[in-house]
């Protein structure tokens, strides 16, 4: 931690805190457990104009209230964030902001997650003294997928400064001045930056909204779960918003090691689009030439019985969890199937200028590192199936496969969440939960093992692959079935060199790096 000599001790709302020199009062207040209301300040945006004047606090000995977002903590300072003067100033800011505000909370997508609404309820007045006609700005478009509701805007300029400071593309600006100021682009040049969607997240009110989210869900009707973006190998930490078991929105979740407060627009769409497709809902086994549904017990016993150890090929998706990859690997070993391949779609790389560690990476899958770690080989195209040999498919690897792929296999085990045409050739289909429907881990491009949580219910009786594969292996005399993700992770970590020492609980919400030994990136060199 920081050097004791550089520590400053001050009192905020009666709580004594010690912070590093240079810490602002607003940040110091957080140490004291005090949240100072603010609009223009955003911890991820470096510029601090101190213009919303919401975070004004009283400092003993200072004649004026001071903006805590920029005012540095000083030794022995005594700060009051809720003194009468500070409260009154804050109440007044709210009143000012609401003068021309349309109060359209009932149809506003930010309602329930709106900093203006929250603070108005907290400190505002019941009745406005504003007797004048309200100014009306109306609605505009700032990008092909983002709308701007000018009347709700409080001109905190977070969006403008995100584009300038973080995206490095000064394409969104304040136009006009004074009470006529609003946010705008240059005519005919809407935002097209790959990370523009973050302006919606930083907007503290409902002024900027993704068009595909407008009127889609109220904040209080949505559930939220922490996830990992499956859009590329960066592994952005995200929050998945769910309504009626459908993903309606994904938002970035802070991880200073990975994505800071941001994510790209490509990533935002992946899970929302994944609501589509035909799902595997029940185990299916091929009896008398026809695939027919079976119970889990029946299906697993049947597969264990029928599956031969005659060698063959396997193909996995780089979008499934490490646990699924690990248990499938164990199964392949049991079957005498060497290797197994995976393919990753490639796209253009885009770097976020203000946080260059965050890129939309060329590798458009979340767990290619994990797939390599578990012994799968990167390849282009699907492996050729020799007539009569075994074929094991894990995850969404056959989406683009020809409809007759695998028809010549001796035994074709399909483990997946979706059913592309080629899955119809399977000998047995074991329905797996899709990633947002289960817990598990991915390993990102730099070898960071990150947990994701369950956001959705699976359709039918689909289960996490690690769960039923561990039971299948138990049928085959390999270990015992596991029911808890923590146990599955523990078995995997114990059996994987680069994961030695990692524990499910220890990963937390920030993740842990693989040890260098056995790291596929290191091993490859």
């Amino acid at each position, binding site marked *: 931690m920081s050097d004791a000599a550089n520590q400053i001790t001050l009192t905020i709302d009666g709580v004594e805190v010690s912070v590093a020199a240079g810490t602002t009062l607003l940040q110091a207040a957080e140490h004291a457990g005090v949240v100072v209301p603010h609009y223009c300040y955003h911890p991820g945006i470096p510029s601090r104009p101190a213009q919303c004047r919401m975070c004004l606090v009283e400092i003993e000995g200072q004649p004026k209230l001071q903006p805590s977002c920029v005012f540095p903590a000083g030794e022995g300072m005594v700060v009051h964030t809720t003194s009468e003067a500070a409260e009154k100033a804050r109440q007044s800011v709210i009143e000012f902001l609401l003068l021309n505000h349309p109060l359209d909370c009932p149809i506003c997508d930010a309602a329930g997650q709106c900093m203006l609404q929250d603070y108005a309820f907290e400190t505002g007045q019941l009745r406005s003294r504003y007797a004048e006609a309200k100014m009306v700005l109306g609605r505009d478009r700032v990008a092909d997928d983002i709308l701007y509701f000018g009347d709700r805007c409080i001109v905190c300029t977070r969006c403008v400064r995100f584009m300038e400071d973080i995206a490095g593309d*000064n394409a969104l600006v304040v136009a006009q001045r004074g009470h006529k100021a609003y946010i705008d682009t*240059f005519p005919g040049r809407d935002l097209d930056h790959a990370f523009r969607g973050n302006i919606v997240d930083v907007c503290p009110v409902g002024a900027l909204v993704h068009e595909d989210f407008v009127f889609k869900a109220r904040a209080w009707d949505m559930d939220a779960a922490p996830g990992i973006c499956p859009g590329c190998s960066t592994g952005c930490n995200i929050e998945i918003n769910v309504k009626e078991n459908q993903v309606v929105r994904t938002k970035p979740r802070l991880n200073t090691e990975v994505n800071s407060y941001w994510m790209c627009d490509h990533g935002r769409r992946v899970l929302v689009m994944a609501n589509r497709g035909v799902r595997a809902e029940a185990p299916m086994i091929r009896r008398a030439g026809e695939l027919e549904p079976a119970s889990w017990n029946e299906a697993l016993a049947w597969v264990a019985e029928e599956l031969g150890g005659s060698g063959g090929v396997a193909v996995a998706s780089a979008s499934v969890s490490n646990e699924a990859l690990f248990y499938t690997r164990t199964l392949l070993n049991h079957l005498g199937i060497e290797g197994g391949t995976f393919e990753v779609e490639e796209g253009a790389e885009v770097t976020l200028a203000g946080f260059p560690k965050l890129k939309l990476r060329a590798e458009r899958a979340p767990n290619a590192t994990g797939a390599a770690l578990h012994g799968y080989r990167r390849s282009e195209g699907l492996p050729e199936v020799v007539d009569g040999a075994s074929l094991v498919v894990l995850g969404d690897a056959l989406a683009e496969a020809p409809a007759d792929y695998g028809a010549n296999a001796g035994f074709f085990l399909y483990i997946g969440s979706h059913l592309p045409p080629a899955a119809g050739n399977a000998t047995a289909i074991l329905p797996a939960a899709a990633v947002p429907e289960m817990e598990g881990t991915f390993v990102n491009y730099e070898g960071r093992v990150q947990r994701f949580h369950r956001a959705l219910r699976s359709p039918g009786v689909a289960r996490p692959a690690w769960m039923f594969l561990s039971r299948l292996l138990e049928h085959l005399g390999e270990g015992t079935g596991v029911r808890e993700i923590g146990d599955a992770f523990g078995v995997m970590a114990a059996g994987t060199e680069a994961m030695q020492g990692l524990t499910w609980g220890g990963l937390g919400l920030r993740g842990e790096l693989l040890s260098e030994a056995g790291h596929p990136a290191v091993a490859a060199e």
Partner: protein
Amino acid sequence: MTRPLHPAAASAQPFQVADLRPTERLFEDPEGQDRLEKVVSRYPEKRAALLPMLGYAQERNGWISDENMAEIAGALELTPAYVRSVATFYTMYNRHPVGRHLIQVCTCISCHLNEGQEVFEQFLSETGTRAGEISEDGRYTVIEAECLGACGFATAVQVNDRYFENVTPDKVPAILDELD
């Protein structure tokens, strides 16, 4: 001007003039290039040339079009949006065409005390326009201005780059006559 423009003077040309030479593009002739180079040479950062170059666009065309803004943005390595943000901040940049004579009548406090409002209304009625409109013959646009900095000579009226001082409503017709 017969002498070449001195670089120290390049940022201070009047940009509200009546004798326009409207050309759509700014930097495709030697004059525009020369102005750009001289203005840029006076500052350590290119961006600082923005106000003088917006002024130059208006000096030539009478107003500043989106195309001119994009052109200036290109010349100064700025985004067009940024240029627009700055251009809309300042009230003297005309974002729409105006009459050949832009008549700005100060009605701020000292002029207000000396019939500023009446002078303003007199200009409107003499030119037959509403505030901000171009008169039918294209000659006049009359607008109300905030303090023009000539409070001791109220009412102050600025027509393009000229000041008229101590204006009273009855002097309005004579001023209009003087403006060709």
